[in-house]
């Protein structure tokens, strides 16, 4: 499965798609990137006159790349043309280290811990362009193809 096919299968769109590209993918893990655009809607309110990417959005970006893109790859044999992946975030534990400002590019690296009985759990890290650790944690979700 090609990486651009994976992005097409994502169930998100603007303004809630936080994946620009996938750099590497295997059964074991994934790395991908996203650049937070200056005009993202949440910068208007977070914070007043001081735009900083909300932690929940960083977590969302990490989940979209680290869990959902990887999950689509892992389900590649089950996902047929017509079927879309069914997904649900079930838990996360996250630590944040540095703020992410508008126009910053982040890289998400995710390692699969377990994928059984439709539950995918990954150890996920986010780095900024300087290679500094922005956030790290564990994210779990349920995923399956709609035709099963």
């Amino acid at each position, binding site marked *: 499965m090609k990486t651009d096919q994976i992005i097409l299968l994502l169930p998100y769109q603007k303004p809630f798609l936080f994946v620009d590209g996938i750099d590497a993918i295997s059964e074991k893990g994934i790395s991908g990137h996203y650049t937070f655009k200056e005009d993202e809607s949440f910068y208007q309110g977070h914070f007043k006159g001081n735009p900083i990417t909300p932690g929940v959005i960083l977590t969302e970006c990490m989940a979209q790349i680290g869990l959902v893109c990887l999950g689509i790859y892992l389900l590649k044999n089950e996902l047929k043309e017509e079927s879309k992946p069914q997904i649900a975030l*079930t*838990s996360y534990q996250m630590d944040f280290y540095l703020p992410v400002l508008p126009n910053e590019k982040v890289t998400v690296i995710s390692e699969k811990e377990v994928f*059984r009985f*439709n539950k995918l759990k990954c150890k996920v890290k986010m780095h900024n362009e300087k290679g500094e650790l922005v956030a790290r944690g564990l994210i779990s979700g349920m995923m399956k193809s709609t035709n099963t």
Partner: protein
Amino acid sequence: MTNEELIVKLKAIVAPYIQDEAAFKTLNEDTDFVKDLKVNSANLVDIILDIEDEFDIRLENEDMEQMLDVKSAMAIVTSKLNA
């Protein structure tokens, strides 16, 4: 292992994942993981994985589908242990 010993072990395994404290207190063979204990689907998987570790057995998709209540979990664990 007796059924009493098994139920004690299962009770300890499900403890971190339950939502309904009252149903947990009165846990018995007829307790349903989802309907009574209000465990979510992801935590049901955690329970299955913890059962595998505790009893050193391997559970398959068909086992998972049957493991809806304490009684069926006990039956499946017992049959795997005796296999």
